[in-house]
């Protein structure tokens, strides 16, 4: 058939041997039939119209010639195509893949797995394959990535076990994709079978048509090993709570009933946990509590004892970073009488889901009422205020007499000066002298000189001292001019206190339109007390009538933001008010990307789009990296990826800007460790490799049995089945036939005198 088609001039390349052929018509067989049904009677009728005398023999000859010509023409008009399938010869390829992950560095009897691979290569393994197949194998190293290895590198054995992960599925997919699965005689994979990332190789290799042969450098169960695993260690804890850490110890060829786990906190002994093994089990869990009684980041390192001659000691340690934060903003209010102002401060604060409020009011005698998160509780006598103060971030005083403060005064002063408690003092109907503050420690915290304050019962407005206020909580509107106008057009307050003067170092945050002897009287004043902040508001009601219950879009939200942001600032959490860093885990690994997300809000607590966010990362060696963040599809969220190069504690600082103006900063930390996934289960996975080999038509062998693999590799020249479509109109022979038939008819007619 190949010869006939070649005779007609059809090009069959590259098919050498035709396996099958099928004829198809562009118009279909029905089209051809209909055309013939129309054309044959027509040509016969035309022939009959010719009224000349002719012999029967000649009549039949002429009719046959014409009908053949009509059939051939109709056939060609219908678009005949011949689909030919046949074998095409191919160049064979063979791949050898060497696992270069860190688990290949695990030693068995002073010889690492990679050393055994070197021995294999030294025994001319590659040459044996070349001799068998007649082709030099393509050699690759793989771990989390695949790299081709040149012939020279193979001869020098330039393999190092430094890959942090192993992805067998990805490696095989890469090699078959590069070399072409059809031309591959097989893949020889030299690996310990520890696949730590990517798809499950059993699933990924199930449909592979290329045989994958596995060579294991060593045998399962040769050496004893103990491994320590942490199950999702906590990244964050909340102050005055505790977190529980869970882990597991696994044994391989070790007989013991318990394994001690030493826990160190910032390098110092913290506690010891024990993993107790039931008889016959190889895994046992352990757990311990970490009380979060101090803010900050703490590095925890866990360790189990190393055995002599153990498979690897790299899996005997684990660590995590715990960040203890006061995530919740706890605001405590202490008032000497009921006040609508405090009710609305509470409402504003609770617009923030992370805010918690506790409001104590002394009603009469020793009768106190308390509401937590604005839920009133039954009255009590002589409550223990210290308990609530201990967890408070901000304390608000409103008409609080010194007698009420006395039991907590010492703690209050200590915490304010330490910067762990912010103080907000609201005006009351009584002067500081009437409240008994004169000569007390609390008086020293105040930003004003009390004693002779005078109530100025004249309504007035608030005035921002400057358009460019350095305090974010005073920026309720992004545009500075509009922001000043916003404060100026707020409903008036009913009056304010005029004090003798401000203490040195005090700062006016908001002025009033009321004029004192010379200057405008201050409405909001700030002072520093040690590391803490104290804010005094001199006028009231604090929230003019319009704020109390404002249903308009302009009303409640900006004021709520002012309260929430001011309290966060007072709680020394200025950065948290605007920008926050979100880490998937506080633990990162060398060479592996960690996603860092930064959430940015504007001064109104609205998520900010189109901000410029930059993260500066500093490692323990002092090296610094700047990473710009890209805005994500989530509003106000910006993201970047960080691939650490070194282990150790890395500090992160995010700086967010909008139209050149700083919105805020946030800080965080990440503990970078060498990845331990390669050592979590360090034994050679013989059963997995045997299954993968079996599923793909390959074989599994240990390093001493490589001859089995060499002999199993198919050395026949490769060929593949290909199909080709031939347009039958593309033939000079058919053209000749088509021209020849009318010429023959014309010639016969001519010699018979018919034309």
């Amino acid at each position: 058939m190949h010869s006939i088609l070649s005779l007609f001039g059809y090009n069959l390349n590259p098919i050498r041997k035709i396996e099958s052929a099928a004829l198809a018509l562009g118009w279909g067989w029905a089209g051809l039939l209909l055309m013939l049904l129309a054309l044959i009677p027509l040509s016969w009728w035309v022939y009959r119209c010719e009224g000349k005398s002719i012999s029967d023999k000649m009549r039949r000859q002429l009719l046959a010639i014409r009908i053949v010509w009509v059939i051939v023409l109709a056939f060609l008009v219908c678009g005949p195509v011949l689909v030919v399938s046949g074998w095409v010869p191919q160049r064979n390829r063979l791949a050898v893949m060497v696992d270069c992950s860190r688990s290949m560095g695990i030693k068995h009897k002073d010889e690492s797995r990679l050393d055994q691979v070197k021995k294999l290569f030294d025994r001319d393994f590659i040459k044996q394959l070349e001799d068998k197949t007649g082709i030099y194998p393509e050699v690759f190293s793989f771990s989390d990535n695949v790299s081709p290895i040149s012939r020279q590198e193979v001869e020098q054995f330039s393999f190092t076990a430094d890959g942090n992960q192993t992805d067998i599925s990805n490696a095989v997919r890469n090699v078959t994709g590069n070399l072409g699965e059809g031309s591959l005689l097989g893949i020889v994979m030299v690996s310990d079978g520890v696949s730590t990332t990517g798809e499950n190789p059993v699933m990924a290799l199930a449909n592979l048509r290329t045989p994958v042969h596995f060579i294991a450098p060593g045998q399962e169960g040769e050496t004893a090993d103990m491994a320590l695993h942490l199950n999702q260690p906590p990244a964050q804890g909340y102050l005055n709570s505790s977190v529980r850490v869970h882990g597991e110890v696994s044994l391989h060829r070790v007989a013991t009933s318990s394994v001690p786990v030493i826990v160190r906190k910032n390098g110092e002994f913290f506690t010891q946990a024990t993993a107790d093994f039931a008889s016959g089990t190889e895994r046992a869990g352990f757990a311990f509590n970490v009380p979060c009684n101090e803010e900050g980041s703490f590095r925890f390192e866990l360790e189990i004892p190393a055995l002599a001659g153990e498979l690897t000691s790299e899996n005997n340690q684990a660590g995590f970073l715990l960040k203890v934060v006061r995530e919740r903003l706890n605001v405590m209010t202490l008032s000497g009488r009921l006040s609508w102002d405090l009710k609305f401060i509470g409402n504003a604060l609770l617009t923030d889901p992370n805010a918690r409020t506790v409001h104590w009011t002394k009603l009469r005698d020793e009768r106190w009422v308390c509401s937590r998160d604005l839920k009133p509780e039954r009255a009590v006598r002589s409550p223990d205020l210290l308990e609530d103060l201990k967890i408070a971030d901000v304390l608000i005083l409103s008409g609080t007499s010194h007698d009420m403060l006395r039991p907590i005064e010492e703690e209050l002063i200590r915490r304010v000066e330490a910067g762990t408690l912010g103080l907000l003092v609201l005006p009351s109907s009584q002067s500081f002298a009437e409240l008994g503050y004169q000569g007390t420690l609390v008086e020293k915290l105040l930003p004003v000189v009390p004693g002779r304050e005078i109530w100025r019962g004249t309504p007035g407005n608030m005035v921002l001292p400057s358009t460019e206020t350095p305090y974010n909580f005073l920026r309720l509107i992004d545009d500075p001019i509009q922001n000043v106008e916003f404060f100026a057009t707020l409903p008036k307050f009913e009056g304010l206190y005029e004090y003798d003067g401000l203490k040195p170092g005090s700062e006016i945050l908001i002025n009033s339109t009321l004029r004192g002897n010379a200057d405008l009287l201050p409405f909001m004043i700030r002072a520093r007390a040690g590391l803490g902040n104290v804010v005094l508001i001199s006028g009231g009601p604090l929230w003019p009538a319009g704020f109390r219950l404002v249903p308009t879009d302009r009303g409640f939200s900006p004021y709520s933001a002012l309260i929430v942001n001011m309290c966060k600032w007072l709680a020394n959490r200025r950065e948290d008010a605007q920008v926050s860093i979100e880490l998937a885990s506080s633990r990162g690994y060398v060479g592996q990307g960690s996603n860092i997300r930064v959430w940015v809000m504007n001064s109104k607590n609205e998520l900010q789009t189109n901000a410029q966010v930059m993260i500066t990362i500093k490692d323990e060696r002092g090296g610094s990296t700047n990473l710009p963040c890209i805005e994500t599809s989530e509003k106000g969220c910006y993201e970047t990826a960080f691939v650490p190069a070194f282990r150790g504690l890395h500090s992160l600082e995010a700086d967010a800007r909008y139209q050149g103006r700083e919105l805020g900063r946030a800080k965080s930390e990440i503990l970078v460790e060498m990845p331990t996934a390669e050592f979590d289960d360090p034994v050679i996975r013989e059963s997995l490799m045997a299954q993968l080999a079996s599923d793909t038509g390959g074989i599994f062998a240990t390093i001493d049995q490589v001859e089995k693999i060499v002999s199993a590799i198919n050395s026949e020249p490769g060929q593949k089945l290909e199909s080709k479509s031939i347009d039958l109109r593309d033939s000079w022979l058919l053209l000749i036939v088509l021209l020849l038939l009318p010429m023959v008819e014309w010639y016969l007619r001519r010699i018979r005198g018919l034309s």
Partner: protein
Amino acid sequence: MTRFRSILTVLTVAFIMLLSSRVQSSAAEFDRTIVPRVKYGGGGDWYTGPTSMPNLLRQASERLRLPTQSENIAVSISDPELFRYPMLFLTGHGQVRFSDYEINILLNYLDNGGFLWVNDSYGIDRFIRREVRRLYPDREFELLPSDHAIFNMLYDLKDGLPKIHEHDGKPPAAYAVFNKGRMKILYTYESDIGDGLEDAGVHTIDTPEIREKAMQMALNILTYVMMQ
């Protein structure tokens, strides 16, 4: 000389007045509490008991040192000034009806932190339940137990809501509508605290003890609202 003395006297008096005005003004008075009554439609007597709220606010000023404006102020739901008042008092004997517009405003008011105290003077029950159902279709009045905090704020009312006026011989009951964990509406039924708050002599059958109970309950309500 006489002229000089008179000028000196005038200056002295002016100085003393100026000084006294400054001294007087040292007592800050702001953030005054006003509890207006709701002027509702439907034909009910929203104006009943005009002295009850002024009396309550006067007592709040005395007993709680709360700056108050003790006047009988009425406000309709559609009044833009409504949002100045954190608490509203609604009382009467008959029909209460809010328009759809008023329902929307009242809902907005309550959801933004406002509070409505409904006092059943008698005969209001059917109508107020209907209107509250229009406000919060998915909420029901909850009966407050006698150990609820509202009966124990400023005064301990161990039996819960006190009985002030006898109407149908039914026991007094305090119902509340809660939304998002907060009490939005308090309905004092078959008690008539409002009558007990009125001036002595308006309801001659109210003994001083009964009137004191009513005042204690009203102050408890005011305290509770200001704490939530």
